[in-house]
């Protein structure tokens, strides 16, 4: 769809933004660090300097890819949901319940069943907001923000009181999930778990869904112009509900993959804002699945960078976070891209 030139231009824009962001970050580092070069290299180089950190980046990117996809789907249908966080809890919870409490199934049935239940949990919970929007005209920003609290509190109650592993001590969790159901780390010495493969698969599936299927066509049309969709005979309410539910299913997957890949079981409060990070990822990616993959990797990279910088230099966590914010802001600056495009366009004209 895009010409090769446009893609190069976009890449040049990203490179340009990153350079500026790094310059800004460097200024902050110079102002606050006694060893600016060490700090900078521990921010930029350390995250990719060894297999361990690279694996960590991949692992961190996995849930972000899922929540990013979740929100990309929802945003594409013109719904501004902030509910991935709650859906992630709901889905992760249901998936974990199935993982922990069903015994005797062969793993090749049990594992997909867990994923399906997590998706169902996320989707059904998301469906509440969808239903409220489609049939009760209730603004989705409000309902999803509120439902997040409901999901977090409700799952917290259940894991603390009903499904708690008696051996879990001060912080509640469910009993550990049997190791053959967990996501493996197939390469020795490389901490990345196979969730990344699932995430890549999800990117492909969502891409196909959005751009190659009837459902995706309807969904995007409703997002772009719902009056046109109505006119074309598309049931916009149904489409809105299904897009929110697809988003919920993806958020549920984010939760269960994080559980199966990192935590080993459902732990109270395990997400720490993955659903909100997903909003940033989706917006950075301009709601495109492939963009989500790149944005999530980028975001994970700078998060790991913030950590390695803290370890490898005298920078406190907060400064690392500030640099992280700068990077995100500048990379998402449309003006920089427009500026480059215009430069390019006028040069083309001058050449002619």
């Amino acid at each position: 769809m895009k010409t090769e030139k446009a893609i190069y231009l976009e890449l040049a824009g990203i490179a340009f933004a990153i350079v500026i962001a790094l310059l800004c970050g460097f200024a902050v580092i110079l102002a606050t660090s006694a060893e600016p070069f060490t700090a900078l290299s521990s921010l930029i180089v350390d995250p990719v300097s060894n297999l361990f950190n690279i694996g960590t980046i991949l692992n961190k990117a996995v849930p972000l890819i899922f929540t990013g996809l979740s929100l990309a789907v929802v945003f594409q249908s013109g719904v501004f949901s902030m509910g991935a966080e709650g859906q992630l809890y709901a889905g992760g919870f249901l998936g974990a319940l199935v993982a922990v409490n069903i015994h005797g199934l062969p793993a090749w049935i049990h594992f997909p069943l867990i994923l399906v239940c997590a998706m169902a949990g996320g989707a059904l919970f998301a469906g509440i907001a969808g239903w409220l929007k489609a049939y009760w005209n209730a603004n989705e920003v409000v309902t999803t923000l509120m439902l997040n609290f409901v999901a977090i509190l409700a799952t917290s109650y259940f894991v603390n009181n009903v499904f708690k592993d008696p051996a879990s001590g001060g912080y509640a969790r469910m009993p550990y999930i049997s190791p053959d159901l967990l996501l493996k780390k197939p390469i020795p010495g490389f901490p990345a778990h196979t969730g990344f493969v699932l995430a890549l698969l999800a990117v492909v599936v969502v891409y196909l869904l959005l751009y190659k299927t009837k459902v995706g066509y309807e969904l995007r049309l409703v997002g772009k112009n719902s009056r046109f969709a109505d006119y074309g005979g598309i049931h916009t309410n149904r489409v809105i509900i299904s897009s929110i539910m697809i988003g919920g299913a993806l958020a549920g997957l984010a939760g269960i993959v994080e559980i199966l890949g990192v935590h080993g079981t459902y732990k109270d409060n395990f997400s720490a804002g993955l659903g909100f990070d997903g909003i940033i990822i989706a917006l950075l990616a301009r709601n495109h699945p492939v963009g989500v993959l790149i944005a999530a990797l980028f975001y994970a990279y700078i998060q790991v960078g913030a950590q390695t910088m803290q370890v490898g230099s005298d920078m406190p966590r907060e400064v690392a976070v500030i640099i992280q914010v700068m990077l995100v802001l500048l990379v998402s600056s449309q003006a920089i891209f427009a500026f480059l495009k215009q430069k390019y366009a006028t040069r083309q004209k001058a050449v002619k």
Partner: protein
Amino acid sequence: GKANNNTSPAPGGSANAPAGKKINAVFYVNGTLGDKGFFDSAQRGMVKAGKELGINVKSVEGGTNQADWAAGLESLVSSKKYDVVVVGTSQMIDIVKDIAARYPDEKFIFFDDVIEGMPNVYSMLYSQSEGSFLAGAFAALVTENTELKAANPDKVIGFVGGMDIPIINDFKAGYEQGAHYIDPGVKVVASYIGDFANAPKGKELALSQFNTQKADIVYQVAGGAGLGALEASKNVGKYSIGVDGNQNPLYPGNVLTSMAKNIDASVVRALGLYQQGTLAFGTNEVLGLKEGGIGLSKDDLYAKYVPKSIQDKMTDIENKLASGEIQVKSILK
């Protein structure tokens, strides 16, 4: 008190501090510093150890995302830059077990819970239920006291927790046992804030306990949010009990005492033993009242504001706890 082999050199764990070389110790915070209690206390210990023992110390904050912790800790361990890693909380048990098994040459000092059977891990548990028992007894004595002018005749005491989760409820259970030890008729009102940051809400809950439930004293176990509860006691001229560190000076005369976990002292002690090569890796200790792991903060302010009768009674109870005459049940394990 149920300490086990805390002085004899460990049989399995070789406590080999590299002779002559400066020791590099790192504290991995599974959260962020600044709770003015738990992690900060450990951090104080690190700083103190750095100064007093002359070892290199560093702290790394892992942030509140649980998913980062395993990788965060492992990146420290695998860097081989540090001789010993200090890390704590029951949320880290499984992670530490896993990493300690894979890096058998690395040493771990673990605080605030028990890790058994790892030859390169030394762990310390503070008996928070014992400490909270003392707080409960203290609170019951305050509400029944006639010397303290703000104490009313109602036998009600308050508890403000961060979240309704087992670790907090363990404090609560100890608190209730202590109160009922003094007088089974004392009523304990418990409320939860929902997080550990929302100080205004902590204050509002405490105010409500004071004003409408007629509580005289509130015990807060809510990190930063709990500071709001302490302030509430000052605003209405009632009493409160701090937690984790000595919070008495925050509102002198209102915060009558604090249930302190002496994590700092225990960390310094452990690092000191490690330096001397005598730390018993592979073992664990429960640091209760007797071992100085926990206790009520008895500073000048305590002496000044707490009636003599209560002070005496508390000393009496502490002795009984230390001797094992009083047994506190923990809801954990």
